[in-house]
């Protein structure tokens, strides 16, 4: 494919678009995994945001 004397401008433009979009996708995927990992860590330690029905019953029994 011959893009003429300005080919470097065209390839640089498309390259930067690909680079930024790939960077955004990578950031979104890694950020999602990090949040999932932290949530799983809290769940493993039994931390809950609010007392559920069982927890409420248990505390009232005590």
């Amino acid at each position, binding site marked *: 494919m011959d*893009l*003429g004397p300005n*080919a470097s401008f065209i390839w640089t433009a498309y390259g930067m678009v690909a680079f930024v*979009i790939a960077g955004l996708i990578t950031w979104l995927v890694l950020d999602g995994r990090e*949040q999932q990992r932290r949530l799983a860590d809290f769940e493993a330690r039994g*931390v809950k945001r609010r007392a559920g029905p069982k927890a409420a019953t248990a505390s009232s029994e005590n």
Partner: protein
Amino acid sequence: MQTFTQRLANPTQFMGLSARLLPWVAGLAAAIIAYGLYLAFFVAPPDYLQGEIARIMFVHVPSAWIAMAGYALIAVSAFGLLVFRHPLADVAAKAAAPIGAAFTFLALFTGSLWGKPAWGTYWVWDARLTSVLILFFLYLGLIALRSSIDDETLASKLTAILALVGIVMLPIIKFSVDWGNTLHQPSSVLKLSGPTIHSSILTPLLVMGAGFLVLFVAMHLKAMRNEILRRRVKALQLAEVARAASQVVAPAE
């Protein structure tokens, strides 16, 4: 019976729906952009005046469209937060800011590369280029303002107000090419009288625009999901701190 938007207002239901939608939306975006690139490089002819360099248009113009659409989404979300207190409005606004900023950067960068061979310069301080640069700074301002305030509720309200004030930039950008002297070409697609581009170039441009739009939707869905998870993590951190504090206090009592 709940309406569709009422169901979406529930973060848990949004997470379920977005998890099912996301792979399809992302796949659709990849397919449309791949087809758009094929049209851009193998079907669209060189521009009769600018030659091959006009192929930058197929990424420059869609990036600029998404830059403006992303900001419009933030402004609508800001309105939804301040007026209707929609639970996901702030999540949507926060998630869209970095993506919109990235596309605004791409519009500026690719436009600059197109400008050098077409105009003889990478940059001129005319109304169109300057107003898009201000939009980029506005995006950065929204991100910086939110990051600088620890109180999530206060941060969301202040950024929403700034977002609503900043919406004045959208008509300024749109009509900037009609005001005064500018090197930038006037609108040639979004015109009341219809597009003035030949269909052999317009079709690839619209396909790439659709691809970028669907890609933005996919990335925004993912960013919203991440933000909801981040808020759940923060709530759990606070719950853990509260539990620890109560255990410290209890023996003393």
